[in-house]
């Protein structure tokens, strides 16, 4: 009986696999047909842009921000007549912040007919996907994959600063503005983003006359109690605590520092963006926290104002920096597509080649910087901005 059952299940499995295969076959056929018709009647054709990021699990905040920000940009572009006269379709897939799932998401998007990728949101999955896009010669721009190898291939670009750049920029900013000389660092050694920034910060700090009095690490498994790290920073006489971490942990650190009567200046990077929206967090604790971020939701320029109000109406939330990065990424894609005179009936590889050549020529006035340009390596060039939290709001410094 058991044998019969297992055989039946094996058969079912085989059938289901063929079913998956066959279900995709007509899809391919139909997309082929669509391609054919598109060459005849180009008005029906659309650009298919894919997005990948975590919308479930621990890093969901970033993925959701990117998804919403990009969707907003796509809607705006479509309302304004699309790219090169073609409408844009956007499809965002979940990767749970896992490299393997991210590759699955990428393959799913390929089946859907993606022509350019806006993703992935987090660094580790981004490196895995970048490998696949290079093999397929698919254009890729990551809004927030900040690790260096994310854009190692020439088909990949990014909107945010790389980790080492952020570390160096932070150290320079602190040094040049003479914010502090004795700095303690609390960082997440199990996180690529955090340790990447820390390493560069440490090497740059020496040039800026900053003394790192304590460098305390924590890991993803021990990110609830920071009293030991804070106590060490306090006894080392730190004037400033540098937090190259994400805001969830930072909110705990701020709360725990308050109970220890430890009140240095806290300085963070773009990961700290969003700290004011943490639930049950007393925002008065974040008073005076400085962070280096390319985007502040209360900036007075017209572009930001328009984006923030549109985002608030659509999603009932204040956008974070990730949403802004994604918004800029979509506009960068648009600019590159227009510059390269790309049409949807071109092959993925041709589109990529055209956009690659255009990316280094274009200049985008985005939310995260005016006149952003890209170089051959895929790094953006824009000014870092620092904001300070005053009266419970981000204020440009």
């Amino acid at each position, binding site marked *: *009986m*058991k*044998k*019969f*059952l*297992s*055989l039946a*299940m*094996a058969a079912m*499995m*085989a059938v*289901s*696999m*063929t079913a*998956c*295969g*066959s279900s*995709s*076959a007509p*899809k*391919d056929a139909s997309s082929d047909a669509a391609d054919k018709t598109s060459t005849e009647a180009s008005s029906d054709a659309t650009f298919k842009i894919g997005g990948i990021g975590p*919308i*479930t*699990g621990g890093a969901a905040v970033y993925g959701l921000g990117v998804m919403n920000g990009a969707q907003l940009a796509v809607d705006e572009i479509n309302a304004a007549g699309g790219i090169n006269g073609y409408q844009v379709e956007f499809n965002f*897939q*979940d990767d*749970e*912040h*896992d*490299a*393997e799932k991210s*590759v*699955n*998401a*990428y*393959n*799913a998007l*390929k*089946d859907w007919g993606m022509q350019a990728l806006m993703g992935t949101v987090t660094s*580790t999955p981004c*490196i*895995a996907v*970048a*490998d696949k896009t290079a093999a397929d010669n698919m254009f890729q721009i990551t809004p927030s994959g900040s*690790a260096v*190898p994310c854009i190692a291939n020439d088909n990949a670009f990014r909107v945010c600063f790389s980790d080492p750049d952020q570390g160096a920029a932070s150290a320079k900013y602190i040094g040049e503005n003479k914010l502090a000389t004795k700095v303690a660092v609390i960082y*997440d*050694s*199990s*996180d*690529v983003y955090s*340790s*990447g920034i*820390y*390493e560069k910060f*440490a*090497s740059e700090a020496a040039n800026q006359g900053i003394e790192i009095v304590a460098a305390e690490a924590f*890991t*993803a*498994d021990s990110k609830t109690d920071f009293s030991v790290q804070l106590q060490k920073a306090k006894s080392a006489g730190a004037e400033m605590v540098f937090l190259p971490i994400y805001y969830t942990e930072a909110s705990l650190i701020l709360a725990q520092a308050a109970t220890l009567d430890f009140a240095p200046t806290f300085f963070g990077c773009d990961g700290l963006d969003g700290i004011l929206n943490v639930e049950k967090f007393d925002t008065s604790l974040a008073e005076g926290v400085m962070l280096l971020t390319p985007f502040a939701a209360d900036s007075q320029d017209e572009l930001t104002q328009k984006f923030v109000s549109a985002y608030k109406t659509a999603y009932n939330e204040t956008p974070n920096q990730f949403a802004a990065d994604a918004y800029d990424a979509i506009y960068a894609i648009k600019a590159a597509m227009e510059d390269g005179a790309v049409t949807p009936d071109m092959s993925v590889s041709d589109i990529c080649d055209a956009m690659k050549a255009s990316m280094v020529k274009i200049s985008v006035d985005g939310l995260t910087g005016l006149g952003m340009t890209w170089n051959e390596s895929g790094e953006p060039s824009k000014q870092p901005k620092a904001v300070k939290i005053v009266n419970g709001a981000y204020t440009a410094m």
Partner: protein
Amino acid sequence: MDNKKMKKTTKSSIITYAMVIAVYIIVEIMLKTGSMSSLMQGLLVPICVYIILAVSLNLTVGILGELSLGHAGFMCVGAFSGAFFTKVMAEIIPNVGVRLFFAILVGAAVAGLFGIIIGIPVLRLKGDYLAIVTLAFGEIIKNIVNVLYVGKDSVGLHLSTKDAVALKLAEGGEVIINGAQGITGTPHASTFTLGIILILVTLFIIMNLVNSRTGRAIMAIRDNLIAAESVGINITQYKLLAFAISAALAGVAGVLYAHNLSTLTALPKNFGYNMSIMILVFVVLGGIGNIKGSIISAVILTLLPELLRGLNNYRMLIYAIVLIAMMIFNSSPKAIELRMRLVEKFCIRKKKGAA
């Protein structure tokens, strides 16, 4: 006549091999005719990885009867040692295929060694202690890998647990394991064919072990420890043997995993406690001690979340519900009864139809 003479166990093994080979042939045909979506193509190697993991864990849980919650830890050891080997040996052995072959051996050996190290003190204990210690082991491994910095330059290998700067690499040196950032740039060498070969090797090792004198001794220990001890079976030795083989095979799966993605990091998501539980779920759903069941459940549970992508936000919720439903269907006494009745009815009707 021959068929009747054939032992029941041999027949069962052949069915299992045939099942794997049949699926392989079907998939290859689909690949050749181009009727498989890229999503499915991308999933082929991960499925092989999970099948090997599930089958190897079944050796510990089903055949040896000990609960291991650190299987992902052994996978992690295998993945990192294998990927490390391929990176270090890049110049000495330029052929990727040959390097991967040795990497698999290295991964298996290192993971097996860790299995022995963990097993020696712990397998002497009775009850749930192994579960707790393997759980701790998995977490320890993950954390050790996260602070490990290994670099290579003209002088040789450098090791540090502080940061990449502390390696003091000479000019032209390369950081191979970069702490939390893991290993990047492992060659893409895992293929579906290789995965299937490794599954067949795994099945061959485990099914022959189970049907051998050693296997009977291991199962005797599972069924009644005191009785086994009283007939002179060396309990610790046999337990250790089964546990080490299980760990080594998990290491093989790890090497396969590492060479499928260009980035390898030890995150809670891929090598943590959750992954160990996931593998245990494969085993439990497939039936403890049932090798074929493990294979099938590993395939279904790996495919399911991906095939549910169309449901967007409800994906993980539906996945959980389907998992519960499948567990009930597979294991609840009432469901089994119902299933039996259905099958009986079906069989009787078929017989009547034949008559």
